[in-house]
């Protein structure tokens, strides 16, 4: 290493009477820099200032401390003093007051719910939800009109297939029930009124109606179940079309040993 110390090298570099280009070409400076990493780092910042230094006549800011130290070093020494600034009286009390009534941090579920609530409350959420729903619908069903047609015709067929018989039966029962309630031939004078049969008849009608409702409900459940199964099969078929299962590895041909 040359006889120059870091301080003397830097002092020479910061001398406003020496142009940086001349300074860097001095052999003792170059020798020192080749062995001193700190000065090389310092030079990196300093060298970048060369154009600034060269652009200004040294005499114009010879009185400025910043200029005489070429800026960077003085700035770097000054910058840590900006790390703390007094926010003024009462700031800590203001913060403590603002935090005194606040609950502790909520769990992830509450935070997630809060975030979701904030998303939902945005005015444009309805548009976004409608857009996403439309995209999903089109992706699943291909196009909206076809999906409506398909589902309507499918549900209608299922209804006809499942509910046709019971409806006919129910109508027949209804007709017979009406016939029982229809006014009969006029009662002959003096004959005993058939009031005693009216109560069991109403009871039978009630039981028949209840049984029909029960059967109808069961048929509706069956129809829905069938429709659900059909939808499941269709979705499975769709999935199979999109992601076909891997082909079975073919068995290697058996070679004849003969």
């Amino acid at each position, binding site marked *: 290493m040359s006889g120059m110390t870091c301080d003397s090298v830097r002092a020479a570099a910061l001398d406003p009477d020496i142009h940086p280009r001349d300074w860097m070409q001095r052999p003792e400076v170059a020798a020192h820099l080749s062995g001193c990493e700190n000065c090389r780092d310092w030079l990196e910042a300093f060298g970048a200032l060369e154009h*600034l230094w060269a652009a200004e006549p040294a005499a114009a800011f010879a009185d400025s401390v910043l200029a005489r130290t070429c800026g960077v070093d003085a*700035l770097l020494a000054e910058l840590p003093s*900006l790390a703390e*600034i007094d926010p*003024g009286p009462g*700031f800590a009390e203001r*913060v*403590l007051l603002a935090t005194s009534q606040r609950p502790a941090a909520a769990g992830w579920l509450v935070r997630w719910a809060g975030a979701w609530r904030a998303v939902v409350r945005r005015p444009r959420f309805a548009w976004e939800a409608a857009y996403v729903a439309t995209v999903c619908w089109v992706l699943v069903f291909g196009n909206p009109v076809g999906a409506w047609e398909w589902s309507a015709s499918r549900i209608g067929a299922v209804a006809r297939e499942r509910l046709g018989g019971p409806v006919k039966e129910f109508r027949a029962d209804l007709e017979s029930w009406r016939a029982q309630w229809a006014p009969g031939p006029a009662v002959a004078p003096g004959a005993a009124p058939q009031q005693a049969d009216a109560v069991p008849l109403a009871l039978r009608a009630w039981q028949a109606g209840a049984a029909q409702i029960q059967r109808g409900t069961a048929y509706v459940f069956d129809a829905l179940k069938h429709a659900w199964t059909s939808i499941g099969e269709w979705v499975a078929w769709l999935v199979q079309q999109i992601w076909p299962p891997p082909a079975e590895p073919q068995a290697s041909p058996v070679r004849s040993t003969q």
Partner: protein
Amino acid sequence: MESNDLSTLIDGCRAGDAPAWEAFVRRFQGRMFALAYSYVGDREDARDLAQEIFVRLYEARAQWLTGDEFLPWLFRVARNRSVDFLRRRKVRTPPATVDEAAIAELADPAPSAEARALDSDRRGLLHAALRGLSAINREIVVLRDVHGLSIQQVASILGIPLGTVKSRASRARVELAERVLALARGRGGG
């Protein structure tokens, strides 16, 4: 010793200890206010922002990191709140292409006594020059040179590659020196 004190303070805050929280606020109010001021450049806004940062820290006190990870985490939280604050208030920092005369005008003594005191010395000059930097360069200088974080920590906080921080840090210092010189000359101090 100081790190032990800080660890004790952090543990106390995590446990919900009110005196520990008060001590923490009093200890870090200057740093948080300085960081907020570097983002918004206005004392009142900086007070609001610093308070928001403390409120956020208080709400998340159960998740505070400990040890050497605490300070970088603290600055990350503060930085995120600052960015949110700027976005909400639609405060725009002066663009990098603003002319020096406009920066000199910004840095002139403000009507309020506080601002006048702040801007009347070299620290005021530095603040004005910092506000003139591009956003990314200002953040690098503030985190690296003002608050003394390592290059790795700055890269982690800003979410940019290490090499970018290294190359930008040097250029940011030069840019800052240029701004200071320009402002000093604009004030007639040079």
